[in-house]
């Protein structure tokens, strides 16, 4: 038995497997955002359908699920039923809000009529709100606590399990 080989080998093995094991629990789709822990950038945008202006500040006092999406985005189709189902179940204690950018109102209205409409959707015409939130692609979802502070950000289509785990985080604050 060559003890040097054994000890050096085990040292390398423990280090490599240990690091990979720790990495297993993490999800690279969870993107650190400099905004996490900070107040969500304020906005007041026109709602699809009603045309009234919705101000983010009006939802202060309850957690908000802020979902950036567009009708030209495939994964947004995929996650829409999840958002609608969870919104129907959890509102009004939690507020869901969709922000659509680079899109037309007709397209959005058609999408919502066909696929369900459970919460307000606003149009970010110039894309300024998406820029303020540092959105890199759609869908991206921000979780705000009741004080309007961003608690987490998720890139890509959400499933119920992921959505609920982040929401728990937002509700704890």
């Amino acid at each position, binding site marked *: 038995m060559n003890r040097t080989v054994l000890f050096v080998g085990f040292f390398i093995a423990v280090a*490599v497997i240990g690091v*990979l094991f*720790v990495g297993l629990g993490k999800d690279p789709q969870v993107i650190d955002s400099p905004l996490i822990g900070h107040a969500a950038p304020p906005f007041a945008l026109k709602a699809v359908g009603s045309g009234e202006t919705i101000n983010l500040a009006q939802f202060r006092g309850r957690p908000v699920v802020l979902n950036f999406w567009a009708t030209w985005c*495939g*994964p947004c189709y995929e996650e829409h039923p999840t958002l609608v189902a969870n919104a129907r179940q959890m509102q009004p204690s939690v507020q869901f809000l969709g922000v659509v950018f680079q899109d037309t109102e007709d397209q959005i209205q058609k999408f919502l009529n066909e696929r369900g409409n459970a919460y307000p959707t606003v149009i970010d015409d110039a894309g300024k709100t998406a820029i303020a939130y540092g959105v890199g692609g759609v869908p991206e979802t921000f979780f705000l606590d009741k004080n309007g502070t961003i608690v987490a950000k998720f890139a890509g289509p959400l499933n119920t399990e992921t959505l609920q785990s982040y929401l728990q985080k937002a509700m704890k604050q």
Partner: protein
Amino acid sequence: MTTASIGRFVILASVLVSTGGAVIGFYAGRSRSRAGLQWARRFAYGYALLMIAATAVMEYALLTHDFSVSYVAHVGSLTTPTWVTIASLWSSLEGSILFWGFILGIYIAVATYLTRKHNDEYMPDAIGVWLSCAAFFSFLIAAPANPFLSVAPAADGPGPNALLQNHILMVIHPPFLYLGYVGMTIPFGLACAALIQGRLGHSILKPLRAALMLPWIFLTIAIMLGGWWAYEVLGWGGYWAWDPVENASLLPWLTATAALHSMVVLERRGVLKGWTITLIQSTFLLTILGTFMTRSGVFNSVHSFTQSAIGPTILVFLAAVLIFSIVLLALRIDRLEADGNFDSGVSREGMFLFNNLLFVVLTFTVLIGTVFPLIVEAVRGKQMSVGRPYFDSMVVPVGALLLFLLGVGPALPWGGATAKQIRRALLPPIGGAFVLLALGFAFGARNPWTLITLAFGGYAAQVTLSQMRSPVTQLRRARRRFASYVVHSGVVIVFVAIAISSTMRYTQEVHLTKGGSANVGAYTITLIGVDERHEPNRFATVARFDVAKNGVHKTTLEPRMNQYVAMREPIGTPDVYSTIGGDFYLSVMNIDAGAQSVAVNAIITPFVGWIWGAVILMGLGGVMALVPQRTAREHVVIPVIEDAVEA
């Protein structure tokens, strides 16, 4: 019986056959039973047949659009072209593991067949190790990554990952990569068998070298194809980004290349037995690490499959193989006695040793850079990424040293040399170094690393070419030696082309409306127009450019944006005009069909095409080395050529 249930049945059978064969193999190795070895071989062939059958069932389901099979429902689509449908097998997680099993089955069957008349003392354990790995992958297919689940059939499916559909190279690149990755199981099995038996005799070296060389060829070409694909598709004009998964393919390549070199010393001088085996084991372990990286969802990369449950399973396998390898090595390494010894450091074998050291340094450098973000996050809870500057600053100097050795090593004789011999061997190629350096300087190269690469490349080129004189004679009498110089000449070209193409690129952003022109270097581009095209599986916005050089029309380029239904963002596809001297590359940044306007990134990259050609030359050299040399049947007495065994 439905297609899905046939698939599940075949996979379950493959779990049983591979497990049974592995047990029989190890038993036969211990008891030295010839009948046991025969049975192990039969099980190996049986496993291969079952994997071929399972893959055939899946391809049948894909081609007949049987959406009751879960994998087909996941990646199939009525609108995708047939070639995409066939390639869908490796477009997503479950299918790619099945494809892995298919290739492993073929490798095991071929290796079992080719070794049927030799090395009976090693083969039972080798088959045992191969089938153990096979059992693991069959288990993966049968349980956590089962592509044959029955689902309620939908009318149509989403189609495979759009990136796969975007370029033909994406269909060729994965099979080559798998042939490289999976093939490393065979040398691993042979190396473990040598350790279990406690000896590494001369008879096993030849099959071991061939078993390592073949997947090395595939892996070499696969890495190049991946880079070429990135260049042709991703639109940033580069071919290597030190992405975690690119690194994952490079790591086993580095250790396999080191092992191929240490084997030369082993064959020639009878030393470095334990070291060579360690390198072969590391190569296999790194392929499993690479598989973990792409399939665990731990690393964010263009290559990552979506998050899945198989990450932990692969990690357990990696840990098991790692512990098995370490214990085996610790138990047996002292039994592998050297048959010879080192005479001098300033010799061919000394340079081989130095080469191995550099390859190991490179492997650790790339490995640490790749997993460092995980370490930082584990320790400090912060996300970070290790970028290009780290890799470039660490890898480029070691790479330059390797290129230098590629010149010096083959120039030195085996076994040590006198000062006069050393001077005579090492001084003349300085001429070659000066020639290439001067040429580069004349053409405007000023980056210090580019100039160093040109000098070392010129030196190595002169040494390599002088060793390749009288190719016809060498091909007959010293094929492997000649083949290794073919590979080396490819390597020299790759180094020089990478140095020039990465430091002498010219990039310019151009905004044009229909009919407008702009000058980019010696080229003039004119926007003919912007079209919208509806294709069966995507919607494309295409810009058409007329490209002229010095007033003469050269070509029409059509960079485009493709929007696939299942993708978050449109995928830009650049278009390239390639010449021997370099490429002219147009990549869309912004396009508007209504306004007939487009913004493109125009990139002129000298010598980039040489990289692809030179890597193919490396692969050809490898193939040449694999072809057995026919000397026994010839009745001519062949004079012994100095260094005839290998360079």
